[in-house]
C-alpha cells in the first residue's frame, strides 16, 4: 500500500503531451492526486483525459513537465528499474476503456494469473489470489470461460479482477461504465464504492456527468483546448453551467413544452427522457 491516506500519490506538473505529428492533446496541466481520494477527470471527447490516464500509468511520457508517483518521477528508465518498476505496476492498476484490449488471455483464469506471474509470485500464491479475487467479485463461475464469450458487464468485471488480484492501491479507470447496461453499471459502481471504502485511490476519466456524484469527491475539468479549467467538488462543478457549456460537456438544448419551444442549457445529471446521440467514440 502506498502509505497513509492524504499523502500525494501523483504529482502532475506542467505536463504537455502530443502524439507524433499532431498538435498537443495536453497543454500545461498540473494537479495532485492524494491517497484515498476519488478523483474524476471530465472533458469532452478528445480533451485528453484518456491520454492523461496513460501518463499517470507510465505508458506514455510527457514531452514537457513531469509526472511523479510517490515523489519519484515516472520515466522510462525509472520504470525499468527494480524494485520501482514492478512495484509501480503492482500498486497502480489501469482499467482500459476497451475490455477486449485488456483481456488478452484465452481464459479468465489466465487473465487473472498474468499480472501476479509477471511479479514473480509463486504458483500456489497466484492460484490462491485468483480464487479469492473471483469470489470477491462473484465471478467464480467464469473461471474457465473464454473472455470472447462474456457479456460487456462480465468482461468489465473480469478486467477489474485482473487488476485487483495484484492488490493495487490506486486504480485508474478509463470510461469504466461506457457500453454497460444499467444493471452492470450500478453493479460496477457498487464495487468501486466498496473498494474506495477500503482505502483505494480512484482516478476516473469520464464524460458521463451522471456518474460524478457516485464516482468522485473531486472533479477536474479539461477544456477542448486541452487545459485544466476547473478543480473542485462535484456539486460545485456541476452547478457551473457556463463552464460546462464552454467545455462542451453540456449543450444548449431545445424542446417542446406543449406548443412552446424553448431553449436552455442542458445537462444529463438525471435520467432524461430525450435521446441524444453523443457519438460515444473516443479519439483521445
Amino acid at each position, binding site marked *: 500500500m502506498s502509505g497513509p491516506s492524504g499523502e500525494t500519490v501523483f504529482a502532475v506538473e506542467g505536463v504537455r503531451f502530443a502524439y507524433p505529428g499532431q498538435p498537443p492533446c495536453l497543454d500545461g496541466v498540473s494537479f495532485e492526486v492524494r491517497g484515498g481520494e476519488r478523483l474524476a477527470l471530465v472533458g469532452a471527447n478528445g480533451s485528453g483525459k484518456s491520454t492523461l490516464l*496513460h501518463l499517470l*500509468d507510465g*505508458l506514455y511520457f510527457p514531452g514537457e513537465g513531469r509526472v511523479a508517483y510517490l515523489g519519484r518521477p515516472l520515466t522510462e528508465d525509472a520504470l*525499468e528499474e527494480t524494485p520501482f*518498476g*514492478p512495484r509501480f*505496476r*503492482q500498486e497502480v*492498476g*489501469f482499467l*482500459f476503456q*476497451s475490455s*477486449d*484490449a*485488456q*483481456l*488478452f*488471455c*484465452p*481464459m479468465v*483464469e*489466465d487473465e487473472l*494469473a*498474468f*499480472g501476479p*506471474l*509477471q*511479479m*514473480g509470485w509463486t*504458483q500456489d500464491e*497466484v*492460484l490462491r489470489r485468483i480464487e479469492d479475487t473471483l469470489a470477491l467479485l462473484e465471478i467464480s463461475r467464469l473461471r*474457465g*470461460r*473464454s*473472455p*470472447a*464469450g462474456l457479456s460487456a458487464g462480465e468482461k468489465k468485471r473480469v478486467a477489474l479482477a*485482473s*487488476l485487483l488480484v*495484484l492488490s493495487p492501491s490506486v486504480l485508474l479507470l478509463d470510461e469504466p461504465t461506457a457500453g454497460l447496461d444499467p444493471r452492470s453499471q450500478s453493479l460496477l459502481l457498487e464495487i468501486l464504492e466498496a473498494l474506495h471504502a477500503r482505502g483505494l485511490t480512484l482516478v476516473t476519466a469520464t464524460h458521463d456527468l451522471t456518474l460524478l456524484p457516485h464516482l468522485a469527491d473531486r472533479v477536474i475539468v479539461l477544456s477542448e483546448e486541452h487545459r485544466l479549467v476547473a478543480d473542485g467538488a462535484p456539486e460545485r462543478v456541476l452547478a457551473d453551467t457556463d463552464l460546462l457549456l464552454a467545455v462542451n460537456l453540456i449543450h444548449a438544448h*431545445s424542446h417542446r413544452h406543449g406548443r412552446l419551444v424553448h431553449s436552455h442549457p442542458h445537462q444529463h445529471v438525471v435520467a432524461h427522457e430525450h435521446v441524444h446521440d453523443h457519438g460515444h467514440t473516443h479519439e483521445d
Partner: protein
Amino acid sequence: MTALPEWLRPGARPSGGVSPRPAAHRLLRRTLGAMGRSLALLVREDDGPNAGALRAADPRAKLLAAVGLIVVATFLRGMLPLAVCLGLTLALSVAARVPGRRLLPVLIAVPLASAALMLPATLNVVSGGSPLLVLWRTAGGALGPWRLPEIVAITGDGLLVAGRMVLRTTACAALALLLAATTRPQQLLGGLRSLGVPQAFVMVLAMAERYLAVLLRSAQELHLARLARSVAAIGVRREEAWAAAGVGAVFRRTRALADEVTLAMVSRGFTGEVRLLRPARWQRKDWLLMAVAAAVGAALLILDRRLA
C-alpha cells in the same frame, strides 16, 4: 436542432430506385455463415454434464494421442488397417458425443471430395496395373510431347491406390476433428504449454485465438452492415473494392488493438518475458489414455506390416 430534410421525414419515398435482388446477397450470406461457424467454435463453452468422457480427459493427453495416431495413419499402407483406424475413430466420436452436424462433413464431404480427386487415380494411365474395366479405347498416337495411351481403364492397382488415399485422408480428418470437437481451444492451448512448446509461442497462439474472435466479430459486423444496406448487385469491380476496404478496415483494427494490448500488458507488469500458469499434473486416466492410444497405434502398424 435544424429541421429535418424532406427525404428524411416518415413516409418519404425515393424517386426511382431498384428492386431488391436477393441473389446478390448469396456471397455475403455465405461468408457470414462461415464466420459465424468459426466464431461459434471459438467461444463455445462447456458442453454440460452429459458430455462424453473424452471431454474431461487432459487436453495434453488428447493432443498427443490424436497427433500420434494421425502420424501412424500416414504410415499405414493396407486398406484394412486404415479402415480399422477410421472405424475406431468414428466409434470413439460417437461415444464422445461429438454432435452429428460436426461429424457429418467428415463422414460425407471429406470422403466424397477425396474420392472425386482420386477418380483419375483409379485409371491405368495414373496408377498402372492390369485393366479391370476398359473405359475407352483410343487409336494411340501422340499429342505434342505426350504419347497417348491405347486404352483408358480402371485397374485393380488404381482402385487400391485411390481407396487407400480416401481412407487415409478421412481417418486423419476424423482424428483431427475428434480432437477439436472434444477439446475447447482454450484447453488445447493450455495443453500445449507443458509439451515443451516455448511459452512465448503458446502465448502468441493463445492471443491469436483470443483476437481472432474479436476480429471475426468486426468482419462479421462489416458484412452485416453491407447486407443490411445492399439492395441490388453491384459490379464485380466494386464488390472487389468493397472486400478490399473490408480487409483494410480489419487491418486498422488489428493495428490499433495490437498497440492497446501492448499497453495493457505493460500496465500489468509485462517486460517481454512470458510467464504462464503451470498446468495441472498428469493423472492416472491421462496416462491410461496415452497408453491405449500407443497400443492402438502399435497394433495398427504391426497389422499393417503383417498384411504387406
